[in-house]
């Protein structure tokens, strides 16, 4: 077993085993995770973050493997975070994205990690932001995040990465589907995979029509991920998108937004745990009034929140 201090040293030496242990620690929300993140923090080079999203079976994992291969071929160090759904009943999960990674497994400079969504509904595990921080500190050049199979509204990925690739396949819907809000809007690059299937051209055309009316130019590219057809074009579109964002300041803006969001979420999660415990204490002996309907939960909730805020100020003063 590697203990925490050894783990920091091994991590900083570039030991992938230490990285894997650290990811588990952060994922479990271990109390030591925060200290560990602080201990391995470093300034400087950040990784390029690419998100891959789209419906189940569209070919996200196969495309992810091919993109990773292209980046590895040009000497980049690449990490893959592959999220699959956890059961809402047992918490268990089948994490099967790694099956598609055989062609690249074992390459040096590559780290692959499968994650259960663990109750998160936005398409990615909640632990992704701190895991991304670990991977950046470990020194990866590129991090590719694959979401669970998504439908129309799971858009967390857009607030987690620099560039979003939305993968679809022919035959999933008509031109009205392509007009809807949600996942269609978040694409920086659109991929119509399984382009050898009937209707691929039509699907691509409908998407192009819908995207033309949007605020940004989004390329629609055809691929056959299993054979590698079209992958080079996806890589160069992503490169071009990255360069454009670097030049016009969008990259910095997206990073700011991402960090702020993660910071707010973490601060809120700490307060929310304390608040929940405190509310339960306050409710002791009063539940019958709420249960009977004599006091409504919204009036009660506001009163408690106001009381908690006042209490928060005084307890902070005492701590200082």
């Amino acid at each position: 077993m590697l203990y925490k201090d050894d783990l920091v040293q091994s991590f900083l030496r570039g030991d992938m085993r230490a990285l894997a242990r650290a990811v588990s620690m952060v994922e479990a929300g271990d109390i030591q995770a925060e200290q560990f993140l602080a201990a391995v923090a470093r300034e400087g080079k950040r990784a390029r973050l690419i998100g891959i999203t789209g419906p189940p079976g569209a070919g996200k994992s196969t495309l992810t493997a091919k993109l990773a291969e292209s980046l590895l071929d040009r000497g980049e160090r690449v990490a893959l975070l592959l999220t699959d759904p956890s059961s809402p009943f047992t918490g268990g999960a089948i994490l099967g994205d790694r099956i598609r990674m055989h062609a690249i497994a074992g390459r040096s400079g590559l780290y692959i990690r499968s994650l259960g969504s663990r109750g998160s509904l936005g398409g990615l595990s909640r632990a992704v932001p701190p895991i991304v921080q670990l991977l950046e500190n470990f020194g990866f050049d590129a991090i590719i995040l694959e979401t669970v199979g998504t439908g129309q509204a799971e858009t967390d990925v857009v607030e987690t990465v620099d560039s979003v690739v939305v993968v679809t396949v022919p035959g999933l819907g008509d031109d009205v589907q392509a007009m809807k809000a949600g996942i269609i809007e978040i694409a920086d690059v659109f991929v119509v995979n399984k382009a050898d299937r009937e209707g691929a051209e039509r699907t691509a055309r409908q998407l192009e029509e819908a995207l033309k009316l949007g605020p940004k130019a989004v390329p629609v590219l055809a691929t056959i991920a299993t054979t590698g057809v079209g992958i080079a074009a996806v890589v160069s579109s992503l490169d071009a998108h990255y360069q454009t964002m670097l030049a016009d300041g969008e990259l910095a803006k997206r990073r700011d937004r991402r960090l702020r969001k993660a910071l707010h979420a973490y601060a809120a999660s700490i307060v929310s745990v304390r608040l929940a415990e405190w509310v339960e204490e306050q409710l002791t002996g009063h539940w019958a009034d709420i249960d009977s309907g004599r006091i409504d939960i919204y009036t009660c909730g506001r009163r408690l929140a106001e009381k908690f805020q006042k209490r928060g100020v005084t307890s902070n003063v005492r701590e200082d």
Partner: protein
Amino acid sequence: MSGRSFIRVLVAKPGLDGHDRGAKIVARALRDAGMEVIYTGLRQTPEQIVEAALQEDVDVVALSCLSGAHNYSFPRVVELLRQQGGADILVLGGGVIPEEDIPALKQSGVKEIFTPGTTIQAIVEFIRAHAIQR
């Protein structure tokens, strides 16, 4: 960052047979028992299995083999795990394993062998009792 920890299991198929029905049934049952199961597919070398186990930081490696290569591949997985800092990972084997091979496999460090007829419940209980949650 708060949550519970899950038992993570790598279900892997070393060797060249293409039969993964058993492995998939076990994977599904472990999922229903609340574990996170990483399934890596067919025809994996011991080296690939160990690399996946370490990168995924699993608590358990469950090997399924129907080709008769278990006397080589199971001990090799244990050996590589020990060499690469994964000695605390629980290694289990399953498949058509002759009775007479079992003592040597256990001697090599495979903690338990589950042969045809084993109940799913027995496997789940064994993992719950023996996996070291780290």
